[in-house]
C-alpha cells in the first residue's frame, strides 16, 4: 500500500489515515483528499459532463465525507467505495434536481474540461468520442459506474465488485449487459462501428 511520510516521523497508509481522520485528525483527512480528489472528480465529470457542476459535486462529496467520517465504519471494503457511494448519491440528486436540468446543446454537454492535461485532447474530440460519451450517459447509473471504474480508473472486476458491493461474477455479468446496452444506445444516436462502416462501403 502506498504511503507518505508524516512530518518525517511515521508513515501514513490509507488504512490508518482513515482511522485517524475518523478520530478528527485533519492531516489524515488531507491525505485522503489528495489521494482521491482527482479520481472522484473524474468519475463525476464522466457521469454528468459539466465541468462547473463536477467541481461543485466533488466539493460536496468531500464536505460530506469530512462531516461524516467520524461515523465511518470499516466493513472490510475499500474506503474509496464509501466516497464513490457519496458521489453516486449526489449525482442522483443532481439528476433529480429539476432546476439544474436544462437543455444543453450536445457539443456543450460533451465538452471536456479545458484544462485537462491531455495534449491529444483536441484530436480526441471527434464526433465518435462525443457519441461514445453520450451513449455512456444514457445507460443506467450502475452500468455507467462500472464502465467508468473499469476504463477510466482501470480497476479490476474484483475491485469494482468491492466498490459496488457486488460479487465478481455479478460484475462480469453487469459488464456484458452494459456493453450490449451501450451498443443499443450508440446505434440509436447514430454511431456506426468501423466494421459497420466497412460493410456499408
Amino acid at each position: 500500500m502506498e504511503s507518505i511520510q508524516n512530518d518525517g516521523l511515521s508513515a501514513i497508509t490509507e488504512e490508518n489515515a482513515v482511522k485517524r481522520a475518523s478520530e478528527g485528525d485533519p492531516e489524515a483527512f488531507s491525505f485522503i483528499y489528495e489521494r482521491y480528489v482527482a479520481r472522484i472528480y473524474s468519475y463525476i465529470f464522466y457521469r454528468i459532463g459539466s465541468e462547473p457542476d463536477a467541481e461543485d459535486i466533488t466539493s460536496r462529496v468531500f464536505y460530506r465525507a469530512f462531516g461524516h467520517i467520524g461515523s465511518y465504519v470499516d466493513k472490510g471494503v475499500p474506503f474509496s467505495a464509501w466516497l464513490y457511494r457519496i458521489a453516486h448519491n449526489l449525482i442522483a440528486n443532481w439528476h433529480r434536481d429539476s432546476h439544474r436540468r436544462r437543455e444543453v446543446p450536445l457539443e456543450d454537454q460533451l465538452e471536456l474540461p479545458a484544462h485537462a492535461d491531455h495534449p491529444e485532447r483536441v484530436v480526441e474530440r471527434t464526433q465518435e468520442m462525443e457519441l461514445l460519451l453520450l451513449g455512456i450517459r444514457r445507460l443506467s447509473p450502475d452500468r455507467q459506474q462500472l464502465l467508468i471504474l473499469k476504463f477510466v480508473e482501470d480497476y479490476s472486476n474484483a475491485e469494482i465488485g468491492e466498490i459496488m458491493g457486488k460479487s465478481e461474477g455479478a460484475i462480469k455479468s453487469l459488464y456484458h449487459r452494459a456493453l450490449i446496452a451501450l451498443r443499443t444506445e450508440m446505434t440509436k444516436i447514430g454511431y456506426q462501428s468501423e466494421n459497420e462502416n466497412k460493410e456499408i462501403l
Partner: protein
Amino acid sequence: MMDNFDDLVYTSSLEKKLSESLRPLHPDPMFIHSLREKLSQTSNVMVEKQVSHPALWVLGAGLVTGVLLVLLTRRFKG
C-alpha cells in the same frame, strides 16, 4: 451464428474504443487548492467544536448528579 460472431466483433471493437477514449481527467489545480483550503478551515472549526463537547458532558453529568443528590438527601430527611 454469424450474428453472434458479429456481436463479438462489435463488442470487442467497443471495448477497444472505450479503453482508448476513456482516461482519467485532472481537475483544475486551482480548484483542488481552493477546496483543500476550505476543508482545512472547516477542520479548524470542527476541532474547536470537538474540544467543547467533553466539557459539556462533564458539566451535564455534574448537574444531574447534583440534582439527584439533593433529591435523595431530601427523601432521607423526610
